[in-house]
């Protein structure tokens, strides 16, 4: 695909995050956008299968975090809980300062519409719509009128380097570009958290690297991005890595303010 790498012209993420009177983190410098405290998740009743066994994690605004672990480590469950697609069995989850315990379906949906952007491994683009409308749909449930949605979508497409493909159909473009569209859709509403679930899983390694570079670039411009992956190579490119295994966090390169080197560890391989 070899598109010229993103030319940072837009003000996508800088615009509003700074003005948000979010819940201040412990250090007071940057507000925490995600706080998990002793979160557990158990599926089924007989026998109960624990997927998360007490996870505590704080992500502050502007961070780029990789949650990495082998399959069965609970990272998909973690993704669902961070994304408020599922509720924890015990423990508290705060998104953008809001405790999601006790929120009903409508409130959770509103929270997702406002504060969380998803990037999926399978892209999930609507083939009958143009690229621009696919991105604009990121704001469909946020109460933004269609003209403004398209304007913001054009900016988001510009930010991911696809300004010239606005009117193409997703079926006519490459996998890497499709994932860029999906990223633009996640970013269009300037959410507090962008959750990327195996964003390079369906891409070849070169394209995958380009997508990671794009995520890093977007992070530099202010977006808080959490990447969930099983791939330690991908994780090693992120500033902060959280390793999960058997439903627990086994290491977090940033949890204590120790400046641990981000060299990848071999212990996490399955």
């Amino acid at each position: 695909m070899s598109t010229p790498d993103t030319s940072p012209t837009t003000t996508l993420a800088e615009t509003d995050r700074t003005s948000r009177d979010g819940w201040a983190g412990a250090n007071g410098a940057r507000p925490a956008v995600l706080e998990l405290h002793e979160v557990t998740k158990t599926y089924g009743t007989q026998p109960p299968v624990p997927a998360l066994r007490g996870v505590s994690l704080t992500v502050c605004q502007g961070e780029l975090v990789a949650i990495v672990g082998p399959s069965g480590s609970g990272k998909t469950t973690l993704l669902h809980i961070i994304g408020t697609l599922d509720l924890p069995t015990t423990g508290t989850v705060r998104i953008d300062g809001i405790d999601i315990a006790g929120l009903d379906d409508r409130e959770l949906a509103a929270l997702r519409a406002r504060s969380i952007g998803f990037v999926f491994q399978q892209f999930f683009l609507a083939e009958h719509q143009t690229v621009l409308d696919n991105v604009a749909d990121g704001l469909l449930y946020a109460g933004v009128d269609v003209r403004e949605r398209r304007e913001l979508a054009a900016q988001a497409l510009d930010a991911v380097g696809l300004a010239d493909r606005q009117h193409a159909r997703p079926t006519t473009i490459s996998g890497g570009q499709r994932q860029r569209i999906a990223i633009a859709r996640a970013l269009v509403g300037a959410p507090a958290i962008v959750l990327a679930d195996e964003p390079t899983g369906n891409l070849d390694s070169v394209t995958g690297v380009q997508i990671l570079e794009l995520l890093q670039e977007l992070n530099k411009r202010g977006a808080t991005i959490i990447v969930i992956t099983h791939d330690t190579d991908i994780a090693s490119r992120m500033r902060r890595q959280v390793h999960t295994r058997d439903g627990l966090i086994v290491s977090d390169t940033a949890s204590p303010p120790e400046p641990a080197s981000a060299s990848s560890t071999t212990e996490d391989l399955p």
Partner: protein
Amino acid sequence: MNTTAQLIPARLRSGDMARVASVGLRTRRLRAALSALGIAIGVAAIVAVLGLSSSSQAGLLAEINQLGTNLLTVTNGQTFTGQAASLPLTAPAMIARITPVTKVADTGEVSTANVYRSSLIPSINTNALDVQAASLNLLPAVGTTIDQGSYLNAATATEPAVVLGAAAAQRLGIDRVYRGERVWLGGMWFYVTGILKPALLAPEIDDSALIGYPAARKYLDYSSTAANGTTTNGPPTTIYIRAQNNQVNAVDNVLANTADPESPTDVNVSQPSAALTARADAQGAFNGLFLGLGTVALLVGAVGVANIMIISVLERRSEIGLRRALGATRGQIRAQFLSEAILLALLGGAVGVVVGAIATTVYAHTKHWAVVIPTEAWAGGIASAILIGATAGLLPAIRAARLSPTDALITV
């Protein structure tokens, strides 16, 4: 600090709602068209049945109106003891003196005579035809005209001449009038001078062979004795009266007394057009079977829509998951699939109404009826389509909304 009070999901704008509801139809057109077809057939059947019956009714009523609703008939009834009463000879003349009466004509049934194609026909084969003595002004009063030949006149009324009603001519096998054409009537040959067109308001004329009163007296011995003892023409058995349109009821009320002042209860008075109008109104009752078939087609169509929507929900799990991740509430997912089903059925309903209306129009034109599509037919068709869409879409929509976002996002 953010509060939960701010977490109110945005309502979809109507344009967005329409776009979201039509996603399934726009992306799977053939399937949408086929599943809407069932509804279309049902609605078309119902609209066409109701439209055709209304149009034929309108056609009949128009015909009746053209013939006039101001015709009244007086016939001889039965006496108190159950014998056939006879009308007074003076009845037509007395009725003619009622001011709003415009025309009076009469016939007298010659029950002793029958009519046959020839003398060789066994006498039992009467073809259910009557022989009637008729006054010369009969045709305008009953609202028919001569089809071939000519009607009786003052001359032919005294001679063995006969005019055949439309049905009578057909049953006797006479389709045209030519010089020397004759029928065997009352034991002698009568010459056919004319054939009538059907008389809708007086079908008894259709089944009759009409001869003049003087001829009936002369050749068939149909006579009565006048007050002064002389023999005169036979008594009328049916009197046809035309009254001014706005006075029909008033005339109706006094007819019996006028026709037979001595025993008005022996007289039957009727208004043929009223009976015909009632028959036209009752015609709708025969449509039950076809309406039932249309309803069955609608039900089958509803099952089709429900089926397609359930498949659609299964197929579009990931779309549902994505929409939930983008912030759609359960209610918004439910509304999306419900409105998709309604849209589908509405599409079918609209096509059905158009097809039904076209069918009605084409058929009504071939029959020269006015095209009448009752409001309840097309409005009912559209309304039932919406109802069916809502019913058929409800279960799939609830299933779509119940799907948890995490389940919906699991692929393969």
